[in-house]
């Protein structure tokens, strides 16, 4: 991580919480395995491997085999957490995710590490802005983007207990804590972090704290913004989103992902059919240029200022 990022961003790399929680869960449940593609270091699995040397299944740099092997491990009674950089997990192994995990219905937790533009300087091959669109299109696969360490841990517990496949992002870009104390996670349930009547900001992952900051800015301009953390992108909390559409009449979605097929699309698909309201979908329009994550988020207006600006323009309509 660059100096610029460490000073400008929040305090928590969700990978640490993920690794700690995975070890805690593995102590309680002998079925839990970590499956990876040479990514022991980048997935923060070094301590896990020290404690459970036999329970890290490292297939080497071979993502198709990694996901197929995970499905087989689940067939054999294990509960694999597949930990790999999100672009390679979701892109290279897309058909294995579709056929071997989701269509075959094996309890495999697909953990997209360092998603979005976490590898900003490494360029579009290493950006994972497409993962939400790709994963959303597969059967009944849950697609989850936790916002902070507490929510990351809660999501892991929830999907492990479900006995079903799931995809979750595990953030690398540092974020502040945003979850209310004691807040858990439930599939298909979003959390209202701030009440408001004029416009609703629906955000996920790295964008949740920025949406909260944007709401504070908007309050100063006389705009009362509601803020929803929709970590469960699929299934979406239809009820809460439609209530927001009815009660605030305007929705801005914010995600560190391409604007086609992700959170904004999910919200638009819902409200367009049941309660159409004006919307703005904030995200990344296409391949991103080279730059630090912090730079790229600013470049695309994925900041408190950018979100407040979009919400203000929408509120003025």
């Amino acid at each position, binding site marked *: 991580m660059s100096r610029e990022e460490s000073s400008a961003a929040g305090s928590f790399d969700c990978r640490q919480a993920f690794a700690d929680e995975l070890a805690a869960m593995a102590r309680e449940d002998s079925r839990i395995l970590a499956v990876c593609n040479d990514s022991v270091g980048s997935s923060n699995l070094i301590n896990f491997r020290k404690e459970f040397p036999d329970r890290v299944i490292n297939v080497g740099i071979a993502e198709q085999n990694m*996901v*197929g092997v995970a499905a087989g491990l689940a067939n054999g009674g294990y509960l694999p957490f597949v930990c790999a950089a999100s672009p390679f997990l979701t892109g290279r192994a897309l058909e294995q995710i579709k056929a071997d995990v989701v*269509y075959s219905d094996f309890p495999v937790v697909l953990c997209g590490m360092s998603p979005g533009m976490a590898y900003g300087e490494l360029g579009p091959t290493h950006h994972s802005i497409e993962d939400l669109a790709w994963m959303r299109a597969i059967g009944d696969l849950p697609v989850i983007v936790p916002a902070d360490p507490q929510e990351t841990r809660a999501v892991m517990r929830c999907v492990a207990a479900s006995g079903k496949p799931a995809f979750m992002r595990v953030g690398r870009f540092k974020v502040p804590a945003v979850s209310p104390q004691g807040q858990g996670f439930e599939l298909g349930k979003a959390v209202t972090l701030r009440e408001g009547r004029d416009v609703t900001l629906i955000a996920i992952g790295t964008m949740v704290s920025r949406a909260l900051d944007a709401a504070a800015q908007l309050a100063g301009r006389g705009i009362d913004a509601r803020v929803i953390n929709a970590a469960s992108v699929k299934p979406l909390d239809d009820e809460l989103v439609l209530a927001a559409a009815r009660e605030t009449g305007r929705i801005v979605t914010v995600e560190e992902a391409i604007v086609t097929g992700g959170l904004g699309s999910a919200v638009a698909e819902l409200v367009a059919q049941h309660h159409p309201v004006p919307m703005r979908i904030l995200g990344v329009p296409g391949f991103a240029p080279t730059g630090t994550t912090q730079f790229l988020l600013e470049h695309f207006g994925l900041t408190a200022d950018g979100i407040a600006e979009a919400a203000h323009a929408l509120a003025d309509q």
Partner: protein
Amino acid sequence: MQTTSASDVAAPLVTDEVAAAAWRERRGQFDGATTEQMVAALGAISTRIRRHILETIDTAGLGHVGGDMSVTDILVALFNGVLRIDPTQPAWPERDRFILSKGHCAAALYATLADCGFFPADRLRHFAGNLSPLNGHPNRRKIPGVETNTGPLGHGLPVAVGIATAAQLSRQGLRTFVVLGDGELQEGSNWEAAMYAAQRRLGGLTAIVDRNRLQQGAGVADTNDLEPLPDKWRAFGWEVHVIDGHSHAELLATLSAPAGERPRAVIANTIKGKGISFMENGVEWHHKVPSAAQYEAALKELAR
């Protein structure tokens, strides 16, 4: 004329207790049988399965008859003489696992599963029907005895490696068998899995290559040649056997041999369309459906 309602076609597949009992009885008889007796019995079963495949494809009006016929003897040997399974308990945790990676030959697998009693053979007439559980490719959500969903090629071996790894971790004695098409070996994912199986020394894993030398549109050698195939597997760290994939004696001897320290590749030389003279080695019979006259002629050959 028999009528079939949509709800019949869509009905869930349940165990055929009578067929399962018959299967259990012949497995019991095989325990004390000579190889000659077993081979004679398996030959009769293979002929029955080939007839069922042909009827299934004729009824459905689609299927992959050439590859179904080439893999039949392998399936019959596995399900009647090798696999430790219980058709009445398809989810028994310690069962041996079998994956048909060349999932387009589903009709052969379904006919074999039904013959063991996993579900009634009269459901084969619903193969690929609207809303049928017997999808054109195997679906474990709906078909007892199917371990993982296949269809896209190059998926079965990685999943089999995962199962064999699970068995190694849990120290269960279960064995994992996977049948691969030879054309399918052009998919790179197989070789990722082959490398890793050797790395883990998965002695409980057997990959059987249905080496019929034809793919959809042409000979494998004329498309993207696999030779030297045994050397390729050896170079990847596997124990290699090359056998006649239509010899039940060779299949039983090779597939029943105790697990070694390395994964085992069995290159089973087969004939696409085996058993029906005008289909044998004919590239056009990959997924061609026989005409009424061809169907009758084929049934006659299988009755002999």
